C-alpha cells in the first residue's frame, strides 16, 4: 500500500475546445490512455524517459494523438508487480480505460497482462517478455520496442565476432533478465564460464566483482538497466577491472539514462540497440532535437520507445477515428504500424513484436565533451525474435 500515483492531466488541459473533433467520436471527452510505469526506485529513470518521450508526441500535437484529444493518466508502479496489477485493475475497471502502455519491467508486465488483455489493448513501450511473444502471444498485446532477447542476441553475436572465448554474464533475476542471458547465449559461440543472477534491487556488486576477478574471463556481459548499471559500471572501474576485461551490454546498460551518471568509466564499452542518437533518419533528428529542447537532456532509447508508442497509438486512433473500444479494428490498425518510427524501417511480425534492424554502438565522447553512443555497425538486419514461430497469430 505504499502506492504512489500521479494523475497527469496536463495533456488534457491543453486541449482547446474547438469543433474539430471527429464526427464519429464514440465517447465524450478525450480518449484516455493509461500509462503504468516505473517512476520511483532504481528503475525510475526508465519510466521517466518513456513518459517524457510519449508526452512529447502528445504535446507536439497540442494534446492530440491521431488528431483527437487524449488524456494520459499516469501511475507509478514502483517496480512492484502487485502495485502494477492494482493500478491496472483500477484503470480498466473503474476508469474504463481501453488503451494502456508504459510498463518498464517484465515482471510487472506479466502480472498486469491477465488483468488488462481481456478488456483493453496494451501497447508495450519497453517490456517484451518471451512469455508474451511465443505461445502466450495475444491479439491485443503489441510491443513497439523489441522482444526481450533481441538486443542481447546482437551482443552475443558481436562478442563471438570479436573472438572472445570465455564470457562471464550477469543479469537481474527477473523475467527480462533470464530472457537477456538466454538471448546472449543463443548467439554467443564461446564458453559461458559463469551465469550470474542478482536481485533486481541490488545496488552493491562487490561480491560479484570479486567473483569476476577470480574467474578471469575474456569478456563480461551485463544486462543491468538504470541505476543498477550505473552502480555496476562505476564499481567495475573502482575494482580495477576496467581496461583489464572488456565490458559489453545491451543498450539498456549504456544509454543516456546511465551515461551522464557513470561518466568516463563507460568509455569504450560496446552495446546494441534498435535505435541510436545519431541514426540518420529525419524522424529521429526531429525527435532528438525537440526532446532536447523540451527537457534539456539527450533522449535515451527508452524515450525513443515512448515516442514511437505514442506515434503508433496515434496512427491507430486516426485509422479507427477514435473508436478504440472496437478492439479488433483497433488492433488491425496497430498491426499496420503506419507511422514514421524514429528507427526508420519498422513493421510487426505475426506475434505483434517488431521485425527490425539492431545496431552496434560504442560509448564515446562527442565533440561537446558529452558521453554518448556512436553507431558503429549493424548486428542484424530485419531481425525477428526466436519465439514468433510458436505464436498462433497470423
Amino acid at each position, binding site marked *: 500500500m*505504499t502506492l*504512489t500515483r500521479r494523475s497527469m492531466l496536463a495533456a488534457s488541459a491543453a486541449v482547446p475546445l474547438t469543433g474539430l473533433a471527429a464526427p464519429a467520436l464514440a465517447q465524450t471527452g478525450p480518449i484516455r490512455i493509461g500509462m503504468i510505469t516505473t*517512476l*520511483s*526506485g*532504481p528503475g*525510475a*529513470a526508465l519510466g*521517466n524517459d518513456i513518459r517524457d518521450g510519449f508526452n512529447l508526441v502528445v504535446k507536439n500535437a497540442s494534446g492530440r494523438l491521431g488528431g483527437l484529444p487524449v488524456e494520459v493518466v499516469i501511475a*507509478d508502479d514502483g517496480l512492484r508487480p502487485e502495485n502494477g496489477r492494482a493500478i491496472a485493475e483500477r484503470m480498466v475497471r473503474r476508469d474504463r480505460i481501453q488503451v494502456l502502455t508504459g510498463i518498464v519491467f517484465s515482471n510487472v508486465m506479466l502480472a498486469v497482462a491477465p488483468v488488462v488483455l481481456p478488456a483493453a489493448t496494451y501497447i508495450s513501450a519497453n517490456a517484451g517478455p518471451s512469455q508474451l511473444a511465443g505461445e502466450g502471444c495475444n491479439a491485443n498485446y503489441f510491443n513497439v520496442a523489441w522482444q526481450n532477447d533481441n538486443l542481447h542476441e546482437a551482443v552475443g553475436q558481436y562478442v563471438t565476432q570479436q573472438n572472445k572465448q570465455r564470457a562471464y554474464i550477469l543479469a537481474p*533475476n527477473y523475467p527480462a*533478465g*533470464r530472457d537477456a*542471458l538466454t538471448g546472449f547465449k543463443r548467439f554467443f559461440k564461446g564458453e559461458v564460464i559463469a*551465469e*550470474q*543472477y*542478482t*536481485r533486481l534491487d541490488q*545496488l*552493491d556488486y*562487490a*561480491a560479484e566483482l*570479486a*567473483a569476476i*576477478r*577470480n574467474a578471469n574471463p575474456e569478456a563480461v556481459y551485463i544486462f543491468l538497466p538504470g*541505476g543498477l548499471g*550505473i*552502480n555496476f559500471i*562505476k*564499481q567495475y*572501474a*573502482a*575494482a*580495477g577491472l576496467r581496461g583489464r576485461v572488456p565490458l559489453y551490454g545491451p543498450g539498456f546498460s549504456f544509454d543516456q539514462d546511465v551515461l551522464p*551518471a557513470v*561518466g568516463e568509466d563507460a568509455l569504450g564499452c560496446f552495446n546494441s540497440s534498435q535505435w541510436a542518437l545519431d541514426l540518420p533518419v529525419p524522424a529521429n533528428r526531429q525527435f532528438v532535437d525537440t526532446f532536447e529542447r523540451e527537457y534539456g537532456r539527450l533522449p535515451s532509447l527508452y524515450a525513443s520507445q515512448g515516442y514511437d508508442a505514442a506515434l503508433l497509438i496515434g496512427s491507430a486512433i486516426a485509422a479507427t477515428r477514435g473508436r478504440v473500444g472496437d478492439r479488433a479494428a483497433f488492433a488491425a490498425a496497430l498491426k499496420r504500424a503506419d507511422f514514421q518510427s524514429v528507427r526508420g524501417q519498422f513493421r510487426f511480425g505475426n506475434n505483434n513484436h517488431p521485425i527490425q534492424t539492431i545496431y552496434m554502438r560504442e560509448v564515446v565522447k562527442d565533440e561537446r565533451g558529452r558521453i554518448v553512443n556512436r553507431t558503429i555497425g549493424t548486428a542484424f538486419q530485419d531481425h525477428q525474435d526466436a519465439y514468433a514461430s510458436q505464436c498462433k497469430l497470423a
Partner: protein
Amino acid sequence: MDSLLLLEQTLNGLTLGVMLFLMAAGLTLIFGVMDVINLAHGSLYMLGAFAGATVTARTGSFALGVLAGVAASALIALLLELTLIRRLYARDHLDQVLVTYAVILIANESVKIVWGPQPIFLGTPEALAGSVEIIPGVPYPAYRLAIIGAGILAAAFLWWLIARTRLGMLIRAGTTHRAIVQALGVNIQVLFALVFAIGGALAGLAGMMAGPLLAVQVGMGEQILILTFVVVVVGGLGSVRGAMAGALLVGLVDTLSRAVLPTVLRGMMEPSAADQVAANLGAVAVYLLMALILAIRPQGLFPRHA
C-alpha cells in the same frame, strides 16, 4: 573458493559490518539510555544521505557532503527528540513504534517531494576512486577500505566518548542505573537530547558513506534498519560493545553466505534458480543466526545488567 577471493569477500563483509555498527550503536544507545525504540533511525540515515548528496553536488566536495550529512542528521534527530520522542519516554513501546513509524512515512514522502522519486547516484570522491593493491595482484576499491577505516575511527571515538568523558559516564550510568543518574541532579532532558543527536549523527555518517556504494533513494533507510535490529538484538539491547560484535557478525554472515551459497547450489540446479535460492537463503542465514544466538542467550551477546 580460493583464499584470495575469501579475503576479498571478508573485506566486503566488513564494509557492511561497519555501516551496521554505525547504525546499531546509535539505536542501542537510544534504547539503552532512554528505553525508546526508534524505527525512524533509518530515516535519519536516509536524510543524512540526501543532505550530504545535495551538498556534494553543490560544492563538489565529498568531505563537505559528509559533514553536511552528519550535521543534518544530528540536527533532525535533535528536532525529533524535542518535538516528538520526548513525549514518548513515559509511553509504552507500542506507542513508540507507531509514532516513529509515522515519522518514517512522513520522512519518505517529504524526501520524495523535495528530491523527487528518482535515486541520486553519488560518485565516489576523486581521491578514493581507484583501487589499492591489498596484496600484490588483488586490487580492492580504495573507497571501501576508507569506509572500514572510518568505521574504526568512529568506533574509537565512541569508545573514548563513553569510557573517558563525563557524558560517557552519564550514558553508562543511564543504561544501567537510570534512577541514580536522575538522583545525581543531571539534567536528564539534555542528556537524552544529546544521546539522540549522537545517534542521529552516526546514522547520517552511515547514510552518507553508503551513498556512493548504493544509491541515495527513498526507502534506503528501511532496508538497513531491519538488519540493524538484528544486530542490536544479537548484540544485546543497550550495549555498544554488543553492537560492534553483532554488526561484524551479521555483516560477515550476510556477505559470506551470499558469496558461498551460489557455488554450492550451482551443482544442483540451473543458474537463475540457484542464484535466487542462494541470494535469499543468504538473507535467511542472518535471521537464523539471530534465532540461534537468542536460543542460547536470550538477552544477546552482551546483556545489560539488570
